[in-house]
């Protein structure tokens, strides 16, 4: 019996693997190769294949921004990206935002200004803020509101988050 169940187990694995493809991508500066189904969501590839669980799943349908990452420098919702479309791209997740052992100035501003509470939206908020500050180093409050409009938070009420981005931009410019 144990032999047959083991055999079945092997068969199942074989079947499960059929249709998978090997993809190479760069994540936070590190080259990675994964073997996944092409329609696997990038979010799941990051969390399950690469163990990068900092990227969160909120709605799973592109409404909340919790799963935001940068793909070739562009802000995207990783829940809406099939793995195959991420092949060959350069990704930045929340794990790649810190500067070595130090949190980045942006993260420090979120901490200081109370921009994080339960933490589910925070990685997405940080990535959306990074994207905004890369494009507009001196954003207006209106730019910040628009840049973060695709990221929903149910705890802090946004004002602390906006303030954190204002402060981060101010420090960066004066630095």
């Amino acid at each position: 019996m144990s032999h047959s169940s083991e055999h079945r187990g092997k068969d199942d694995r074989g079947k499960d693997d059929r249709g998978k493809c090997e993809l190479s991508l760069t994540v936070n500066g590190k080259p990675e190769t994964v073997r996944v189904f092409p329609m696997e969501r990038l979010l799941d590839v990051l969390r399950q294949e690469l163990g990068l669980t900092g990227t969160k799943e909120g709605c799973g349908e592109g409404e909340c921004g919790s799963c935001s990452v940068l793909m070739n420098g562009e802000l995207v919702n990783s829940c809406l990206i099939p793995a195959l479309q991420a092949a060959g791209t350069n990704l930045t997740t929340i794990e790649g935002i810190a500067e070595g052992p130090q949190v980045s100035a942006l993260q420090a501003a979120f901490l200081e200004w109370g921009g994080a509470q339960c933490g589910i939206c925070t990685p997405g908020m940080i990535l959306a803020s990074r994207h905004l500050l890369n494009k507009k180093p001196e954003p207006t409050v209106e730019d910040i509101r628009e840049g973060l409009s695709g990221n929903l938070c149910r705890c802090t009420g946004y004002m602390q988050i906006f303030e954190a981005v204002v402060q981060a931009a101010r420090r960066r410019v004066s630095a």
Partner: protein
Amino acid sequence: MRSDPADYELIAPGNLQAVVSLLADEPGKWLPIAGGTDVMVLYAAGKLPARKLVSIWNLPELRSIEISPEEIRIGAGCTYTELREHEIIAREFPLLASAARWTGGIANQNRGTLGGNIVNASPAADSLPALLVYEAELILVSGRGERRVPYLDFHTGYKKMKLAPDELIRAICLGRRFSNYLHYARKVGAREAQALSKVCVAALGRLRGGVAGAVIDDVRIALGSVAPVPLRLTEVERIAKGRPVDPELVQLTRKMTGAAIQPIDDIRSTARYRSAVAGNLIAEFLEQLRGSGKTV
């Protein structure tokens, strides 16, 4: 229930010719997927009927914006971000730039494409009323070659369109002839980002004659979220041409708009509200046109 990725096939041939050949070999069997902002939502919800998908994301043939003196030709794979950042689109086709800015949030604008918005065929899509008033033409491509069709009657019913199973939208063409028009757009929704419209409107107009005796020379009005398809109000336009903008005309257009649209009650709004707002927006447009000084 969530879909199992093992049940789906996805390939990325990497060039337009290969995609077109694939669609020609097995028409209707392959679902093109561009930025995934609509397809992946259905997939996540376990509601994607197609099992075989072909990626058209980032195909260079679909990603360019070509400018000639007569027209601008937008590759169907251009994203909302590309539309809103394009200088000539912002200047000459501001209704399209506004619609791109109103669609989703930044992350969705980085992935959602104009061609995808057309084939997804949502009556609430913000870019489609703009394409109606600019009288866009679509270039469709298949193994049989290319054809150019007006967008005006492309959508024939709810989620129905004049696109053969082996065809793709290759480009969207806009004639550069609206520089001396008033361009008017409004979206009414719960919030600007990430909310589908309750009602949206795109309109173009210009006057002729002196300030005192000015009449409407030309006008185009289109509405979203008030019918099974994005709707051009051709009857209202016909009646309005040659008339001064006065209270009588505003009242008449309000009445005619109410008769032309077929709004519904749904999760976002009610038919009654939509009808009232549609009339108000057209009245607002006519008021702005009257004071705009946009004359032939």
